């Protein structure tokens, strides 16, 4: 009995550790392949080189400025895009005729990731931070608009009718029914759009910038320094993962409790 209990525990620990094991094995394989000459470190770099570069950037503080630039671009575009998306979604909801008129434009906007518009943004708004903010704004705006609009249309008719019977006007309905219902959708849109926001900012930086994480990657590409590309992407990925899993995912889980309607 005891023995099988231990087996179960060992298997559970192995199960929990297995994703990490896979990552470690992949890194070791990469390091081994470049060390023993199966792959060319000039193109592939190697984990030890990339790790050393990451540590050096952190130690010298070189990376701080670039992280700051990218994060500020995303923050500004993200907040503005969320607010704009909310306003337009409520506008569409309370004025269905406008929504019907704008539908083809929304379909076109939604058909592809907005990062595709990066050359357009760079040409129109320059290689400074403005073009990145605008592109992030557009990406986040579209996602928020579509999610929230779809969510508002799903608010239960019975609740709306009951509130009307009890004498709620349009303003009371918005305040006590639609806005609380919308919160859940806004949080979920915020979670979906964070990845797209970073993608938009970084792709735009790749195409024309003088600082930021995307610029580091682009500089690594033009100087054929794969360790620069990888270390730059490491920071980009790390920020997205931290924001998504430590901030937005818990927020969304908690949000499901607010879901009264």
């Amino acid at each position, binding site marked *: 009995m005891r023995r099988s209990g231990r087996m179960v525990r060992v298997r559970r620990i192995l*199960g*929990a550790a*297995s*994703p990490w*094991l*896979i*990552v470690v094995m992949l890194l070791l394989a990469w390091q081994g392949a470049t060390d023993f000459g199966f792959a060319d470190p000039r*193109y*592939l770099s190697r984990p030890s080189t990339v790790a050393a570069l990451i540590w050096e950037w952190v130690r010298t503080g070189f990376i701080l400025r670039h992280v700051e630039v990218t994060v500020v671009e995303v923050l500004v575009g993200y907040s503005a895009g969320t607010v704009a998306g909310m306003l337009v979604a409520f506008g569409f909801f309370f004025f269905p005729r406008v929504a*019907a*008129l*704008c*539908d*083809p434009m929304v*379909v*076109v906007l*939604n*058909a*592809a*990731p907005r*990062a*595709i*518009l*990066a*050359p*357009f943004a*760079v*040409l*129109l708004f320059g290689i400074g931070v403005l073009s990145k903010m605008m592109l992030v704004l557009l990406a986040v705006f579209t996602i928020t608009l579509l999610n929230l609009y779809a969510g508002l249309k799903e608010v239960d008719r019975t609740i709306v009718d009951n509130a009307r019977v009890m004498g709620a006007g349009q303003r009371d309905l918005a305040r006590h029914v639609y806005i609380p219902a919308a919160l859940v959708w806004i949080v979920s849109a915020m979670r979906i759009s964070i*990845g797209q926001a*970073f*993608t938009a900012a*970084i*792709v735009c930086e*790749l*195409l*024309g910038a003088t600082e930021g994480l*995307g610029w580091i*990657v*682009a500089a*690594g*590409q033009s100087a*054929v320094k*794969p360790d620069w*590309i*990888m270390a730059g*992407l490491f920071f*980009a*990925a790390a920020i*997205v*993962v931290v924001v*998504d*899993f430590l901030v937005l995912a818990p927020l969304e889980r908690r949000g499901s409790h607010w879901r009264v309607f």
Partner: protein
Amino acid sequence: MRVVIERVLVSVALLALWQGLPAVGLGDRFFISSPVAVASLIWDWISSGELIANVWVTAREAVFGLVIGSALGAVFGLACGLNDAISRALVPLMTVGNALPRLAFAPLLIAWFGFGLSSKVVLAASVVFFFIFFGVYSGIRSGSGLLVANARILGGRGLALLWHVHLPQAIGWIIAGLRLAVGYAFAAAVIGEYLGSDSGLGYLIEYGKEMLDMTQVFAGLAVVMVIVGCLDVILRRVGTYARRSTAVP
């Protein structure tokens, strides 16, 4: 019908505004170009055969990426959906991979796979993979366990179980994933072309950007948007049809 007419009127009005604003001194033709210039450039591309050649390049990258990414995504999705040990090892990695800004990895892939076809195919496949993976995985996982158990008791095994029980339950999810994947595969090919290529729609747009030629950027983007938009509408129709014809038992 009336709404269609109104939509056309709004679009025409916006185009007229775009064409007319610089004439009255608002906005600079250099930055905002004009619909007439864009349309005539697209017409030039069509008549010289340049458009078809470049669309063909991009479409090939997107289709290869779509096929490879879907196949791998389906295999991994099935493995994770049907086997607990595999799903415990891989799903956390897939969740993180799905959150990463993958389109930003284009320079790395170009450094590895070169300026040609393969780097864009890999980029498109890496984007498609996650849509299909999560479509298949969630489709199988969200299916009814009762139905699977009953089918097992009745002797359902292996492929038969997969084909008659798991697949019909997952089809809605798979189609939803596929619909997103098509647009994204095309966009991934275009973004890959921005960052290193010598042909394709993304190359046309990027070249326009380098030449500070807004007309060419607009024309290229318009072609991409029209293609992706049409694909989206078609796939939405197909999706509704497929869901209706493979109703869950």
